[in-house]
């Protein structure tokens, strides 16, 4: 049962994607049905695995004694796979309408489906080696998606993306090999205490692993690819560069910190301080850059970079409360940011504009889109009622109760970041609904809210946003159990 559902959920979308290339469907209708069915069946498999799980690791292939390709379902896997699997079918719906007039649709949807399988592979991988293999695959299958429009800008973004992520993975490989050789073959909560092996060396290795996997989580010096990658079609930016790909980076760091290394051994060392301060710096600095940015999607991308560091901040506190807060932010930020990006995409799709100053007055023509944008903006800012508040509250509390100077520094950075976050989200909503005298650009425009296929997913995510904001109890308990190693 375990083998079937796990391997099925990983292989099905990959095969589906390959099949789509092979069939080369010409009818939109057929292609859409095919994609949606594959995605839904995969989601079904994933939830079968989650509901009947957890499963112990199943080794598919192993070489050189401890390097294994193996899969399992534990709490973190459930968390990540569950989150991603609910998003994929919905974003596909959005993509059908958004990509209506695009070219090379078979290629686009093929790679989009394959990415689903690869992401699930990351979620279900049970060893560093497996994780690494799928991590590399994720880079490869997403490059065509980033460069999809094949104009100068997209090609450049694709190249930069490839350079950063492949380079990062190369650095991470060192950490993968070293940790595996030093005794951590399969993930287990609490990891291996490398103090008995060679403490100094392994701390350096952790640093390499952090920055290597951190490329996908866009930590400070390695963030540039993410804003550039927002030239990709919106479904890609929304799902991959706000959730799947970037959260894989965070996910890998969780696996590295809590399941490979022992957090108790790392807490209080210089390497924790370095990583925490990097995250704290990133989250403030990127929020400032977000305020400066004038391109709609790039601004959201900067906000993503900033929020990824919120998660890393929580995770790097290396305490159960910190991990709970970080992982919760992974989920809640995902829901929020995916809907923000989809609103931005709806705006660009209906008006053809993509800069912030071009938003003035758009709210009066597209009231539903911008109302949803505002609600999700509140969530991003951490206004109560919305789920962003829950994770922010937990992050702040974790920082405050950490008791070390790095924790407190991080807390202050969080507050400053949250302030800039309020500026860059609110200014968009205000421009949309209350254009200053005479700057209303859409007085005579015929732009309107997009169709049901695009609006429905945004509505669903916003509803989830409110639901988790009001009743975070069950999810937080679940994440709390993960963080204390129960599942």
């Amino acid at each position, binding site marked *: 049962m375990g083998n079937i559902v796990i391997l099925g959920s990983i292989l099905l979308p990959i095969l589906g994607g390959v099949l789509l290339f092979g069939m080369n469907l010409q009818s939109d209708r057929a292609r859409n049905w095919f994609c949606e069915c594959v995605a839904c069946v995969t989601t079904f498999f994933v939830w079968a695995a989650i509901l009947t799980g957890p499963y112990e690791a199943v080794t598919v292939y192993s070489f050189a004694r401890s390097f294994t390709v193996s899969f399992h379902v534990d709490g973190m896997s459930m968390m990540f796979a569950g989150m991603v699997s609910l998003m994929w079918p919905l974003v596909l719906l959005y993509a059908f309408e958004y990509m209506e007039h695009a070219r090379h649709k078979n290629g686009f949807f093929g790679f989009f489906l394959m990415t689903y399988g690869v992401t699930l592979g990351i979620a279900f991988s049970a060893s560093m080696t497996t994780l690494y293999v799928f991590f590399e695959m994720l880079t490869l299958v997403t490059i065509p998606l980033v460069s999809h429009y094949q104009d100068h800008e997209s090609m450049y973004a694709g190249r930069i993306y490839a350079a950063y992520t492949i380079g990062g993975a190369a650095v991470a490989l060192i950490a993968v090999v070293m940790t595996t050789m030093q005794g951590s073959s399969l993930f287990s909560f609490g990891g291996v205490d490398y103090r008995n092996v060679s403490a100094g060396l392994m701390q350096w290795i952790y640093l390499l692993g952090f920055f290597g996997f951190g490329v996908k989580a866009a930590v400070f010096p390695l963030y*540039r690819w993410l804003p550039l990658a927002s030239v990709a079609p919106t479904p890609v930016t929304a799902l991959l560069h706000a959730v799947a790909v970037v959260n894989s980076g965070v996910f890998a760091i969780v696996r590295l910190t809590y399941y490979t290394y022992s957090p108790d051994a790392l807490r209080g060392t210089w390497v924790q301080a370095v990583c925490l301060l990097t995250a704290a710096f990133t989250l403030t600095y990127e929020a*400032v850059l977000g305020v400066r940015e004038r391109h709609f999607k790039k601004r959201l991308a900067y906000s993503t970079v900033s929020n990824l560091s919120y998660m890393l901040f929580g995770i790097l506190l290396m305490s159960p409360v910190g991990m709970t807060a970080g992982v919760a932010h992974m989920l809640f930020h995902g829901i929020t940011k995916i809907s923000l990006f989809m609103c931005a995409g709806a705006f660009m799709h209906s008006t053809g504009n993509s800069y912030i100053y071009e938003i003035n007055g758009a709210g009066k023509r597209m009231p539903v889109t911008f109302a949803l944008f505002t609600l999700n903006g509140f969530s991003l800012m951490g206004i109560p009622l919305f789920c962003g508040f829950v994770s922010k*509250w937990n992050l*702040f509390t974790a920082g*405050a109760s950490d008791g070390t100077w790095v924790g407190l520094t991080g807390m202050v950075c969080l507050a400053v970041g949250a302030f800039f976050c309020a500026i860059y989200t609110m200014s968009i909503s205000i421009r949309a609904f209350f254009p200053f005298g005479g700057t209303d650009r859409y007085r005579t425009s015929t732009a309107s809210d997009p169709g049901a296929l695009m609006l429905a997913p945004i509505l669903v995510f916003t509803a989830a946003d409110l639901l988790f904001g009001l009743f975070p109890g069950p999810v937080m308990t679940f994440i709390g159990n993960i963080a204390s190693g129960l599942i």
Partner: protein
Amino acid sequence: MLILILVFAPFLFAALSYAAGKKKESLRDHLVLFFTMAELFAAVVLFVTVIRNGAAAGPGIGRVFTAGISFTTDGFRAVYALVTALMWAFTTWFSMEYFREERRGLNHYYAFVLMTLGATEGVMLSGDLMTTFLFFEILSLTSFTWVIHEETPGAVRAAYTYLFVAVIGGLVLFMGLVLLQSSLGTLSFGELKSALEASGEGQRGRILAAGVCILLGFGAKAGMFPVHIWLPKAHPVAPSPGSALLSGVLTKVGIYGILMTTLQVFAGDETFGWIVLILGTVTMFLGALLALFSVNLKRTLACSSMSQIGFILVGTGMMVLLTCAGDMEGAAETLGGAMLHMVNHSMLKLCLFCAAGVVVMNLHELELNKIRGFGRNKLLFKAAFFLGLVGISGVPLFNGYASKTLLHEGIVMGAEHLAGCAGILHAIEWIFLISGGCTFAYMLKLFICLFVEKNEDPEKQKRYDGMTACMNAGSSIVVFGTSLLFPVLGQKPVFGWLAGFMTGEREVLHHFRPLSWECISGGLISLGIGAFLYLVLIRRVLMKDGRYVNLWPEKLDLEDLLYRPLLTRWLPGAGGAVARFLDGFFTRPFFTRDLFSCLKGLARFLEGLFTLPLFTKWIPLCFAVIGRALETSVDAFVVLMRRTMVREKTAAGKKSAGAGQKLLRTTEEALSPVVGNFSFALMLSCIGIVVILGVLVLFIL
């Protein structure tokens, strides 16, 4: 149950009225009025229940935010729930006439007004700070739409200021709550006190830091110095019913938060008491001064609000100091004074802002020189404004007198107990009296301008005199009816009972004699200062050629001097410089230039030295040599085979050509079936690979 209705029904009402407004405007107007009246009725029922049954923990909604949100009632909360509902009902009633001409965007406006009502009731009845915070954030955002309602450039600017102060205030408050939660482990009003007693000395600094954050966060809404900047700007640009609510209730929301945290956590913290006292004093005096200089009707009233908030904060600070000094009775009396002043101020500002609304809806002007003489022959209007004037200035027997005297008593008692700081407290007492005097002076200025003096333009005066029907019956009831409360609230039995009810101690004002000479003398000094200020400062200095002039330097504005440049220029400038530095000197060149050029250089070096010639020269050469050798040997091999096996052909060939050519031709013939075959090439390459692999295996392993 009643509480839940009070808090959540308005959100439902908001949706209903919005839907109704889409269909028919008049239906919507009636619905909104009906809803607010129903809310008032519910609040009255709650009030009576609390009088009868006393304070009680209300229902909670578990599982929301994990810990659940909780409500509670006691005297103070019940009174404020009632005041809130009353203000909403009256201002809505007044809105019916106020908005009769300008009807743009009213649908949104009313929806947000109703939502704010629910959120305000939520704050006023909250049972823990988390619930307070939740509703506080909601009302911050929903009331934003009132400020921006007019959508004029001034309104947009003020609304931005309002929003950013609200957002920053919310964040600071959030920090404070996190700190408090992490050091005390609870945010419930019922448990904070015991948690504080259980916490160790080591937590003191942290709790004080939390207190300052909370003070600034709530203070931002209350209009406390130095976060008052939004208040004098937002009130004048909002529609008058909105200004009445902003000033009468929303500032009290901030005060509510400060008062509740102070009572539960900081009542024994002297440092905190001093902070509140000093900030309150500055707010009180600065507000009064700004109001004195202002020449705009609503701006004067807004600055007055700020000043009155300062009075309340001074009372709060004194309450803490008296508790520290051990004078519990005095502390309770001062607390009663602060709470009474809150109620008084809410009612006064309801009356006065609606009066300003009457001026606006008739004249569409607020500048004192232009509206001068408007109320000369309007008796009811004049009477209402006069009652407001005597109420707020603290004339004995009116409501403001009682509360201000109680606060004054508090300072005097503080000076007695805290001998070490008597000097400072005496100074504060004098600032208090002067601020009270300013109140009288600026209210007198407004009254004389509106109701006594004639307009400089006789034409206008004639027109103004013709507007006898300046308000309809509903508005008259709102404006005049409210003003009738002021003398009632100024009677000892009434306010004595009210203070006892709100503080929870029946006999709190038992020793207070409002008409004793000590008390009256304080009031008279203050009024005397006010009359002096009016005659000397306002008539002599602030009036040029019979016109009111604004002598307040335009540049002297904390927002323009400090906050705006700080947020729009200095901080982003510094951030931009850092960003440019990092981007320009580190990140970008490192990844696009330094790192890549290093790598490229390395690659080129290796290429030049080793790789390129290896691949372009040596390996092909090797292969060529090996290939030629193989070729020749295979050729020879095949020829040999042929010669030995197929004799006849070779023999036949010998006859026709020379030996050298013969060999060549024979080879070609012999090879043609083999070389032409693709599989032969494959076979050769396989042999090659096997050989290479074999060599590798032999040498490397």
